[in-house]
């Protein structure tokens, strides 16, 4: 018993030390965003003080709003990622449902194509995809950021796996009661499939919010610029001061942190599920 207790204390002690060490870069980011520039540098050599806000100030945040359009970039990203994720949920869940519950010729073929396309790395087709999008005249538009990524094989696969577990009897019963296929899907299946929708939503929202390469290629103007590109521009635009840049980084992380804490369960599940089902 005593040995068990000692083991428990050890687990907690190791976890506390390791987790503090692990998030220390982020603590430095947050504390520096609230410090005057000179203080960031002078605290650096004083050990733990570097990670604690001293000489608290909001000047860095004011500087961000004066010198950068961060609010606009945040709005852009929130807008295009929201539309993209909403369309993706609709289109892929419908396709996944058809592959799980419909009977039609070519179903297995379609499913196999979806599985095969899963391994396709976006980076290997990004140049030709760019070409396709430019030819459509979508250069520097939100359309270019959204439409090519609405259909996603991995999401179709996840939805299909989830819908397979819904009992056929349930659907048949509704069908006998005279409900149509579309009605059954939207009024019966979707409401009981919250978990899979939440999982896809949070995985994709954080994924597209963090995307860097595609927005870098297809957008040019200020009023289409995504948050990640906005940060990069602010980071490379002199004069380079640590404080305001740290403040911009902190601000850019806030929306995703909120979303993460709301959907934490599904995010964790989603990542674990990708692992187990392979």
């Amino acid at each position, binding site marked *: 018993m005593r040995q068990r207790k000692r083991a428990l204390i050890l687990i907690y002690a190791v976890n506390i030390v390791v*987790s503090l060490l692990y*998030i220390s870069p982020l603590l430095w*980011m947050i504390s520096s965003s609230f410090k005057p520039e000179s203080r960031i540098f002078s605290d650096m*050599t004083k050990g733990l003080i570097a990670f604690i806000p001293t000489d608290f100030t909001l000047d860095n945040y004011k500087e961000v709003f004066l010198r950068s359009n961060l609010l606009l970039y945040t709005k852009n990203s929130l807008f295009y990622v929201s539309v993209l994720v909403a369309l993706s949920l609709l289109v892929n869940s419908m396709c996944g449902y058809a592959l799980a519950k419909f009977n*039609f010729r070519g179903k297995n073929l379609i499913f196999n194509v979806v599985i095969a*396309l899963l391994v396709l790395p976006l980076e290997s*087709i990004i140049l030709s995809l760019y070409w396709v999008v430019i030819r459509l005249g979508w250069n520097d538009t939100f359309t270019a950021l959204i439409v090519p990524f609405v*259909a996603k094989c991995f999401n179709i696969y996840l939805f299909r796996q989830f819908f397979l577990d819904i009992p056929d009897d349930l659907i048949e019963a509704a069908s006998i009661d005279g409900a149509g296929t579309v009605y059954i899907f939207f009024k019966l299946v979707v409401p009981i499939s919250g978990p899979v929708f939440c999982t896809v939503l949070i995985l994709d929202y954080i994924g597209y919010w963090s995307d*860097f390469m595609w927005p870098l290629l297809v957008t040019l103007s200020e009023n289409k610029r995504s948050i*990640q590109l906005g940060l990069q521009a602010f980071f490379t635009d002199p004069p380079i001061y640590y404080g305001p840049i740290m403040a911009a980084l902190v601000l850019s992380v806030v929306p995703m942190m909120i979303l993460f804490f709301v959907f934490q369960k599904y995010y964790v599940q989603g990542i674990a599920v990708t692992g187990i089902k392979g």
Partner: protein
Amino acid sequence: MKTKKTKSLKQTEFKYVALFTFPALFLLSYFMFQAMVLAFGFSLLNFNMLKPKDAFFVGLENYRRLFTDPTFYRALRNSIYFTFVVIIYQIPLAFGLALLVRKKLRGVGIFRTAYFTPLVTSITVVSILWTFIYNPNPTQGLLNAMIVKFGMKPSMFLHDPKSAMNAIILMSGWHSAGRQMMILLAGLQAIPEDLYEAAAIDGANAFGKFIHVTLPGIKNVMIFVVQITMISAMKVFTQPYVMTQGGPKESTKTLTYFIYQQGFQFRNVGYASSISVLFFIIVVTISLLMKSLIKE
């Protein structure tokens, strides 16, 4: 269980099949499939994006040029090095973290979240943050300030071709070990408890249980983790773009960065497409190899 066939074999009306599958299939074929076919096609052309009308067929010339281009070999070597070191550093790190938070104890969720947080901040955010941490000047870089405080010599980190890639690797592993940790954790929790009890009855100590129960039980999940880590590591782009622009002396120029440079900076669509095709073959080969390992 998962493959249970639908009982009634009544065919679904075509209008519903079309309504439910057409949007996804149309978008997939118009964008992903078309782009894939075009990538193969472009790789056989001499094709400058600014002068598409002047494109002409050159057969395998781009591939011949690729295999004699020292920059290609450097990028390939950099990507393989990055992938290899990330695997031997990040996966043990993730596994260690998973073991730390494995027990369902009060408050353990806080630690899990802590190991997970860097993942929720974007790779761009941590790349910018770590560029400051890696500042070679001990009065401006956090890590060098610490190093000097402990009486050691400061490192040039991102400014030295010898250390730049390692610095990027150190940060990348830190950023995404949480993902592997979660997958491994799910794998650990799927190992039946009675296997441990049986081992205990056989007189196994903690180490014996780890070797004879935990490791065999986690094997397939571990192979899967290696696979997804390899693939995502091969794709590394944002870190060199933000932190080093592929430098110094091309020491952090990866395959995807090379594609970006040739395709978008120099507008050599044909040449960049041949790199893309090769990149595609490498990633697919890794996927298939690892999949065949899991089946055994």
